[in-house]
Structures are given as C-alpha cells and as structure tokens.
C-alpha cells in the first residue's frame, strides 16, 4: 500500500482491508493515535484524511491511498491550530490519564478549522464522538475556547 502520512510517502506491506489505525500504529510506528473501541464509538483513533476527521479504526487502508493522512504527530509539527490547542491543553492541564487526548485534539483541530469561534453548543455537538472516561470535558471546552481566542 502506498500512503502519505504526515507528508511522508510510505510504502507499507499490509493487506488492503487493514484499518488505517493499525497501519499507522503497527507499521508506520506512530503510536500517538490510539485504539479505544475499534468501531467508531470513542474517537481515540481520530486522524485527518485530506483535512477531514475520520475514525481510523474503521477506515480501510486501501481507501486512503493517494490521500493525505495527518496524525497527531504531523499536526503537532505543522498545524498552527493544533499547536494553539496544545498550548491551551497544557495551560489548563486538560489531560488526566491522557489516553483519549490525541483524538480529542484531532477532533478539536477539525472543529476550529471549520468553525473558528464555536459556541459551547457547537463544541459539545462536534466533540460528542470523543469519549473521555476521565471526564476532562469541562477543561476541553475551556481549552478549545482559549485556543479559538488566541487564533482569532
């Protein structure tokens, strides 16, 4: 499979039905993207494909050939939105166990890309697909708003 992950062309020797999540984690060696449910329920595996958030656990790797895949590692390097969010995440000490946070940040990046000044309701509905068992939701809301303000 020929993939482009974080602007890097990669040739991975995997079956076409392998979910993108496992190609990223087990073959590209990028472990920031997490496995939480495997059925598009929790958002821990969120990455961007051509700028759109997708659940990599149910996205066959064959379907993203020729597309741009961005993981938390790539967004940390290149996205000013992600970087602003990360500054806010650290400012508010958002993470507890931290396991969901890569997915939260990738969803939040997608939110601010399409809606630079989201309301509470916008945030809640956009982020509803990302579970945080530590329930850091309140700080995530605050951090998204801080990042939005910083970016404005």
């Amino acid at each position, binding site marked *: 499979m020929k993939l482009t992950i974080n602007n890097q062309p990669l040739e991975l020797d*995997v*079956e076409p039905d*392998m*979910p993108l999540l*496992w190609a990223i*984690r*087990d*073959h590209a*060696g*990028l*472990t*920031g*993207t*997490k*496995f*939480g*449910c*495997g*059925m598009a*329920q*929790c958002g*821990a595996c969120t990455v961007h494909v051509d700028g759109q958030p997708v659940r990599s656990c149910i996205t066959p790797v064959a379907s993203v050939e020729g597309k741009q895949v961005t*993981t*938390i*590692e790539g967004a*940390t390097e290149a996205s000013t939105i992600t970087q602003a969010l*990360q500054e806010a*995440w*650290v400012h508010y*000490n*958002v*993470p*507890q*166990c*931290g*396991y*969901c*946070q*890569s997915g939260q*940040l990738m969803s939040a990046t997608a939110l601010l890309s399409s809606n630079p000044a989201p309301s509470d309701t916008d*945030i*809640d*509905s956009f*982020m*509803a*697909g*990302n*579970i*945080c*068992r*530590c*329930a*850091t*939701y*309140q*700080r*995530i*809301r605050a951090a998204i708003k801080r990042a939005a303000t910083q970016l404005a």
Partner: protein
Amino acid sequence: MTEQSNSRRHFFKTSLLAGAGLTLGVRLSQALADDAPVAGPGEAGSTALKQGLFAPNAFIRIAPDNTVTVIIKHLEMGQGTYTGLTTLVAEELGADWSQMRAEGAPADTETYKNLAFGSMGTGGSTSMANSYLQMRQAGAAAREMLKRAAARQWGVDERKVTVSNGVLSHAGAGFSASFGEMAELAAGMPVPENVTLKNPEDFVLIGKNNLTRLDSEAKSTGKAIYTQDIQLPDMLVAVVAHPPRFGAAVQSVDDSGARAIRGVVNVVQYPNGVAVLANDFWSAKKGRDALEISWDTSKTPPLDSEALMARYKSLARLPGVKTTSAGDVDAALKGAAQVISAGYEFPYLAHAAMEPLNCVAQITDAGCEIWNGEQFQGIDKPSIAAVLGIDPAQVKINTLFAGGSFGRRANPHADYVLEAVQIARASGLQQPIKMVWTREEDMRGGHYRPMFYHQLEGGLDEHGNLTGWRQRVVGQSIVQGTPMEPMMAGGFDPMSVEGSGEPYEIPNRSIELHTPAAFGVPVQWWRSVGHTHTGFATECFIDELAHATGRDPVEFRRALMKDSPRHLGVLNLAAEKAGWGNRLPAGRGRGIAVVKSFNTYVAEVADVTVKADGSFTVDRVVVAVDCGVAVNPDVIYAQMGGGVGFGLSAALGEKITLKEGQVEQSNFHDYLVMRMPQMPPVEVHIVHSGENPSGVGEPGVPPIAPAVANALFAATGRRIYQLPIANQLAA
C-alpha cells in the same frame, strides 16, 4: 567519616562515570540500572544510571544538568500522582518547578511499598496520604546534603547556606550555585539522620501554585507512552478469545483458519482462553476471529442478572450478618410513629478505561520482564514468579502510564498480567509478546463493580426525630476467595458496607450484610468501591426521611451530624456556594449529598432540569471538598470534576447485565458512558485545612448520583430506586 558516607562516595564515583550525579538514598534496583525503554513521562528511562547500590529512600536523582528526577512509587493513571509526589519533594528541596522530572519506580516492592498497604501498589486513594511525610523527608535530606556540600566548597558555615528556587546561596559571601553544580560534592556528604521539615506557613509550592502537571505536555502531543504503545524488537501481538461464560473451558480448537492468515505466527491455548500471535494487531485479530472453538459451558450456570436481583431482594427480607449495631432497631421501628422503607438496586459496572487492558510479557532464560500500566506490584510480581516457578528477583516490571484504570489494573488475582505471562510461556518463544484485549474482551472480562441491593427502614417519632435505621445490604464480596481475604477478619467484607448510614447519629442502628456464595461473576473494586452504592442508598434515604418530616434536607442532615465537624464543613460550604434554599423555577430541582470516603469529605449539590417527556439535564454541580492540606489545588479541582463525571456517567447510563450466563454489553454502543454534551459545569471549593492530606482520586465519585437523584425528586416528586437512572422518568 562513616562507612556509609564512604560507600556513598564510592557510589558517586562510579555513577559519575555514567553521567549521573547525586542519587539520594541510592538504592537503585536492577530494574533501574538496566536500560528501561520507557520509564517516565514520555522520556527514555534511566539509562544514565548503570551502577546499582542499595540504600533506603531511592526517591531522588539530581543530575549534573540540574534536573531533579523523583522516582514515583505509584502508578500514574490520570490522578496526578507524578505531579503530587514531585511537589512534595520539590517543596522541601527548595527546587524550582521547571527542573523537576518524574519517573516510574521499578518493582522493588520493599523500597517502594505503599506505607498504607505494607506492599507495593496504588489504590484506595492512598498515594498522597502515605507519601506526604516520606517524600518530604526525602526532599529535606537531599536539601541538607546539598547545603553541606555548598558549605564545604565555599568554606562557610552550613547554617548560613540558604536554598530557594533551585539555587544554593550564601548571602554574606555572595556565593551561589545550582543543584547540578553541587551534585558531585553532595553525593559524598553523609545522609542526615534527622531532618527538619518546613513549617506549612513557609510552603511555596504546596497549596500555593497551579503547577503545570509534569505529564501535560507529553499527553497533549501523543508522545506519552502507554503499554499499548510499546514496540520492541521481534515483538508479537496476542489477541485472545475468552469463554462466552465466566469459568467455561476450551473443549477443542480448530485453528487452521487462523494459521492461514498472513502475519499469524502461532496459536496457543492456556487455562482461560486461546491466543493468536501475529506480527501486528490486525493480523492477530483476524486470526482470533477465524478460530473455531467449542467451549465446555456445562459447569457454568446460565446466570441472569434480573433473576439474581430478585434473589437479592428476597435475601434482604432476612436478617444478615450485623456489621454495625447500636441500640435496639427492631424496637425502635416497632415503636415509631412513621416507618419509611425503600429498596435500591445497583447493576454490575465495568471500569471501561479508555485503554483496553493489555500487558507485554517476555520470558527468557534470565526470567520474566513485564511492561504494564502496573498498579499492584506487591501482588503481580510474586504471582508471576509462582506461575513460572522462578525467583521474584527474576521478575522485572516496567511501569508505564495507564490510560485509566479506576481500580481495574489492581487485580487481587493478577488476572490479566498472568494471562499475558501464560500466553508467553505457552508460546515457548523468548521474544516479547504484547497481549491486547479488544474493547469487547475488556467489557466482557468481568471484575466488575458488584451488583448490590440495599433495603432500608427508617423510624421517625411523632416529632420527626429519626430513632431507628436498618440497612440490609446484599452483594458479592470483592476480597472473598482472593489472597486479600484476611481483610474479612471481622467475618464480613468491610468494603461491602463501608459508609452505610454514616455519619448520622441515630440511637438505634443496624447495618446487616448478606454475601451470596461465589457464583462465577468476577468482581472488583471500582473507583470509590463500596461507597458507590452505600453512598447512594444512605444519601437518598436520608433525603427521603427529611421530606417525610417536612424538614429541609440540609437542616435535617445538620441536626444528625453534630459530632462530625468535617462533614458539616463541606455540607455547609456546598450549600452556601450553590445558593441552597433559593427558589428554582418549575421543572428544575436541586439536590445535595455528602459522603466521606478514603478520609476525604465531599458534599455535592446538583441542579437539574426535567422536561415534559421525562428527559433531563444536569445543569450545574457544586462540590465542596475537605482533603486536609490541599497539596495541588489544580489536581484536586481536576479529580473532583473527573469524579463527578465518572459517577454521573454510571448514574445516567452504565450497566452490565447477564443473560443465559453471557454479558450482554460489548462496546460503547451498548455500554453507555457519558459524553461531552452531558457533562455539567462543575465548580469546586476546597476547605482550608491543616490536617494531613488524604486522597482525591475516588472521593469525588460517591455523592454525585444521590445528589442528582435528590434533585430529580425536588423537580418531579419522583424517587429513583434503581441505577442507572436512564429514562426512568419518561415512564
């Protein structure tokens, strides 16, 4: 010079060669001395320390580069212990926060034991409480050695050397130095026998600052390493098949389909399942799904949770083992002007941490090495040694961040850790094997918060005084049949009833317990343990009694807790901050609950809005907490908010049910956990206190469900007797 300081000097010389400076207490175990791939918050482990010497208090390492690393004996699973314990050391050391680092301790179970357990492990919200003096003393001893070193170097009186913000100085002579600069010399100083700890008024870090958590950055960039992320040379991934019913055994396996899948390396059978080993997760999972297994379920009963609850209810009609008794409750109830009765039902609950259970195990001729979000070294290490027939010293455990636990990773049987070890052994391979449970295995793997039923009777006299309280509790014991059974010395499992009826002063009281004989569903502690149900039953029932007397629920409670000043403190503070007593518009309601758990006192007030269709929202939660000295206020706020969220999640929608012996739920589509739109704003107020600190990881959980149930009553006049609340009000 004493012998001890000579050996320290020797240590220092050898460790300096390896690039390290002062190691206080210098008790570096083998595990630390080896190259651990990841031992701390996203950092490569302690490769700097190649030389292992042993001495007590191996908690601090100061490097020539001026970093101070605190070796943390507790698992960081989100509760903030890396930051908390490091704060204690930094405070006494006089360090600057920016130079502090934290690293997970090796499983040197004696050195790093939890002083509350007498064994190495994390739980019961004890990390801060048991470390408070120990870590401060370690920091103070390091400070004294640094000061002595500075005095020696500068030729000044040691008492005139001061330290603050990570700088040693002598004002008169104008000398100053960093810790890193003084590390070499400090390592040769004798360890002080007695150290003086700071007066709390002089604290500059404890309780004063909102420090940046040491793990915030790694966890905000995807760099933090969890067990799931471990990648080692030649590592295989194991995906497992578990029996459809607890306790069933493999009858036969046809693994030809699995072995035909590309990437599959091996299929192994072990006592409670079958594992497929492959080069990556996906191949292993495809292999697992292709297994044809017939299970022998003949010895497993077709359990049904509804039938079980019916049995619990009938048990509750009979007297149980008395766990608390005062006065004569039968007479009090008989003589009461009014008797109120209520029964409360609690389902099994899954921990469902975001990181599904996993563990990496490697068995070589030298022994066994584990990589794990390790919570229970004191149990896991000897259990692994016993299973493999090796010496515990041959078991090395690398502790990683855990993506949540909520109690699950501390299993009295070492269940999932031993499973990984058994798979590695059955494979006969010497390479590392990462066992990964899918979400479905995690959800169906048992070790749940037990199902419980509480039957309560309260007697009121003609003046509305509460004269009698009988609480019958029915549910499985967590420790019965485990190595921790000695906790049942009193003839019952104290965790089944902890907190029942407390702290109310009632002249005639009886708490009684029925513990059904084991029937195969494994149970375990779940964030705040017994208080998850005892707190609900007690706080909902007291609220019901208050209303029966026509008194305000806060007033009613106050009158019954005159001798419990810390309960009163949080009750009053939460009520005041929430505006208790202010009128609310129709459709809205406000409820309160107060629960002490793990020596921390928490009161919570919840505001709800109920719509015409019976659906509702929780609009706001006010928390008052008294946990003694508030070491890290920001962590306390986070744990209270997180505890409210975790408890509310269970109250709103979580339940594990059994039908025909099988768990009905399997993933987040049918085990409904709370999502962002349901999360209320939580406002936390900390009671100022000089008491020794107690934990905050669990105590935020118990009061929220009863506070919400009481608020729903205030809004609708309808009581909640069954959790989860789900859509009961729509009926």
